[in-house]
């Protein structure tokens, strides 16, 4: 190492360090503009989640408390984790025929990986993904949900 190299080493070294310090120093001075922290529980009111965000499976009910689920178990078959359990019953149609219908739609949120395969599989678009994410509860059993609302029935015309 010649003396010239020795000093040029020092010079380039110090210069590179100063460049780095310029970047962090710049952020220090501009911190009020650059900060990216989201203060989560405080910004709950203004928090906008993407409409496609997959947080949990829900069954859409209209104003008459009617849903579109025929109890076909396509979603149950499509689910890789055994998250969905459908219990069916037999309704009597006005003509007096027996017709398979949904009794209870059990959804295990604790097993769900939000893969959206059940929603894709549903032939009647009865279930969708909801953009909610605050699922913490104190007891795991509270995560087992019944998706069809009490007293709800299948919408007219959905086969």
């Amino acid at each position: 190492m010649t003396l010239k190299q020795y000093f040029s080493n020092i010079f380039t070294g110090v210069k590179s360090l100063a460049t780095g310090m310029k970047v962090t120093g710049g952020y220090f001075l501009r911190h009020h503009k650059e900060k990216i922290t989201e203060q989560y529980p405080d910004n709950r009111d203004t928090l906008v989640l993407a409409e496609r965000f997959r947080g949990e499976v829900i069954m859409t009910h209209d104003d008459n408390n009617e849903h579109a689920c025929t109890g076909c178990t396509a979603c149950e078959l499509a689910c890789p984790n055994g998250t969905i359990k459908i219990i069916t019953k037999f309704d009597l149609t006005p003509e007096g025929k027996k017709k398979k219908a949904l009794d209870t739609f059990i959804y295990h949120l604790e097993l769900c990986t939000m893969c959206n395969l059940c929603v894709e599989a549903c032939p009647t678009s009865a279930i969708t993904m909801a953009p909610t994410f605050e699922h913490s509860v104190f007891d795991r059993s509270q995560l087992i949900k019944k998706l069809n609302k009490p007293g709800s029935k299948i919408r007219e015309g959905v086969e």
Partner: protein
Amino acid sequence: MSFETLANWVHNWLYETLHPTVALLVEFAIVGVLIIGLFAVLGLVLVMMERKVSSWMQLRLGPNRIGPWGWFQTVADTLKLIVKEGMTPNNVDKLLFNMAPMLVIVVSMVIMAPIMFAKGIQIWDINIGVLFVAAVSSLSIIGVLMAGWASNNKYSLLGAMRSGAQIVSYELSAGLSILVIVVLTGSLKMSDIVMAQADGWWLFKGHVPAIIAFVIFIIAATAETNRAPFDLAEAESELTAGFHTEYSGMKFALFFLAEYVNIFVVCAIGATLFLGGWMPFHIGNWEGFNHVMDYIPSSVWFFGKTFLLIFVIMWFRWTFPRLRIDQLLSLEWKYLLPISMFNILLVTIIALAGWHF
């Protein structure tokens, strides 16, 4: 009424009313309490400052939940550390393990003695002030080595050995850069060094050698306090926590506190030697300008300069990656030490020839 007159008044009152020995002991007690109080305040302020500086450099907000702007965050943290169980793991050397944090904290307390906090506020204006600081500060490595060895943990041992090699090497260049100012001033006494800068700080008066010495001192000070980029003794990504891996609760807090107080101390010394300590910013014999500067209290000058240097050291920490152990040693032995040797030669010539202002 300044601090100086208050201190004098207390001193005179004690000696008038009490027996001199008792008065001395009472003064000891008062100073001790004040120092411990200063420690607590420094710990809180510096930890908070570190957090805010780092968060602002990292696009974050920093602590902002406890108290106004999060100012009580460190208080809460200290409270947590105090009530936490101070565990002593099995198979450690109990005596050394428990003594190490005490030793480290005592060392950083002792270095406080010759520091001039403001005009006339100094615990002990010892005539070998600078030498005292250099000597005592190298004691803290013993505490680190004790902690590393007594923990009976390989990570701790590695951290302690790294720290030993590092502090022993960087003492040299720190000492040599201090010597530059001693040569210029002609005295080891802190008050003399400060008074010598009444017409301008050594950083400006001492030509190039003083600037080189200042840069080397800042680097060496960072290394001696085990701060990034020289935090090999802790080296979070390599040794988890280095020499204090096994410490918890208040014993860990003492190491933590000692680290921050050490930063304050080295920066105070740096400010005293190169930036004139409590001396306001004076330029030669511009009477008017100097007079205006004198209106700012001396304590403000001292703490302002010290915290400026602390900020620079924090800035280093949040910008640079860590050096490797062999690079750390080669930086010292191949770059800093030869340069400071040459520097001291240069400054001796300047001082002898009287070329400085």
